[in-house]
């Protein structure tokens, strides 16, 4: 056992003072220490993407970072997408396009696509498909996820 460290994580704008071992992943810390269980953990080795969160705006695998590395960084999770009770355009598009079934991969896909659309609202179809190939979904066959993200991109552009 190694010594625990006191750190403060900023998740969706809220500070969480937590005490963690260095080996504790960001994913486990977000869920178990910060209580934000919307972030899912699938494979725990960076393949499935269920644990994707935004770190200073960029999508990253939270299972491949240690919590001690995320101090002072801005972390965003699926809990931070809806504002004032209204779903984000991307969340709404997932519902409208049946882009989820069991929902396990959904938080990861939402954070991946949110990060990408914020950085590149005009992303082309080929590039979008390449980005979405980062995460695994066992239900949808992906077509509806692609449709939903394209639809959200259009909605977000119209609302700009």
């Amino acid at each position, binding site marked *: 056992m*190694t010594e625990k460290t006191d750190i403060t994580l900023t998740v969706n704008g809220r500070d969480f003072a937590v005490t963690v*071992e*260095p080996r504790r992943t960001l994913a486990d810390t977000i869920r178990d220490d910060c209580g934000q269980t919307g972030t899912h953990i699938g494979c*725990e080795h*960076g393949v499935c993407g269920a644990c994707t969160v935004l770190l200073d705006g960029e999508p990253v695998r939270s299972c*491949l970072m240690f919590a*001690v590395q995320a101090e002072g960084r801005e972390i965003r999770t699926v809990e931070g997408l809806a504002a004032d009770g209204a779903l984000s355009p991307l969340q709404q598009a997932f519902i409208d396009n049946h882009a989820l079934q069991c929902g396990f991969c959904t938080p990861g896909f939402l954070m991946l696509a949110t990060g990408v659309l914020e950085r590149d609202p005009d992303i082309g179809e080929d590039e979008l498909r390449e980005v979405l190939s*980062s*995460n695994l979904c066992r239900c949808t066959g992906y077509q509806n996820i692609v449709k939903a993200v394209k639809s959200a991109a259009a909605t977000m552009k119209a609302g700009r």
Partner: protein
Amino acid sequence: MKPAPFQYHAPKTVADAVALLAAHAGDDGRILAGGQSLVPTMAFRLARPAHLIDINNVEGLDCIAEAGGRLCIGATVRHAAFHKPVTAGPLGALLSAVVRHIAHYPIRQRGTFCGSLAHADPASEWCCVAAALDAELVARSARGERVIQAAAFFDGAMTTTLAEDELLAEARLPLLPEGTKFGFQEFSRRAGDFAIAMALVAFRVEGGRIADARIGIGGAEPAARRIAKAEAALDGAAPGKDAFAAAADAAAAAMDPMEDVNTSAGYRRDLVRTLVRRALEDAAAA
């Protein structure tokens, strides 16, 4: 699926980082950069480093600069830094073309160029780039600094000639001359998987003849390398079907391919022939 316990160190300077590495290297101390290969290995408990020296907060290591005809890439420069060309010449375009083949988008936000080289996976795209372009690798330790040529750096699968107390602080790639054409091809069964084989080619055309040909092969053998015989088939030849076929055949013949449960040596050899030909065709068409 949880990493074993380790002591965590987060130095702020290169001097502190290499001092920590010197102190802990013998006790299985490891450098943590992007962590996109190391952390999964730790999750599987295939690696159980007693000390992790996290260089993400080390000042100055995130720098990309041009100096002395070379592009200098610091140890914490992420793959994603190359999504858009980092330099105006052919090298910037080459790096941008190659980076899209590395893993997936979120992995590219964390993983580092130098980390890939130090990890030395046979299927690493950056290792193929480093070998094909004769990168210079700058190793820092508490003992000082030395520059290692790429051809003397890779030492088999997942193995380099870095000493255990040395940090790969920087990689230097030659800024390729204007007019350099390049092509990159790799094959994997699914997008984002480790490549079974890859080929990076670069050359110039002078007076209708190929000059300065470079052919690097990765993924097929334990370490990426330039294939001199294949390059010789190109230099001085007119670019086109015959020269490209000769170079592809020479590259395939030079291989001593790895085998695994899915892929025979013969399959990898054939793949190298095809990938070299396609990469050369891409380069000529660009």
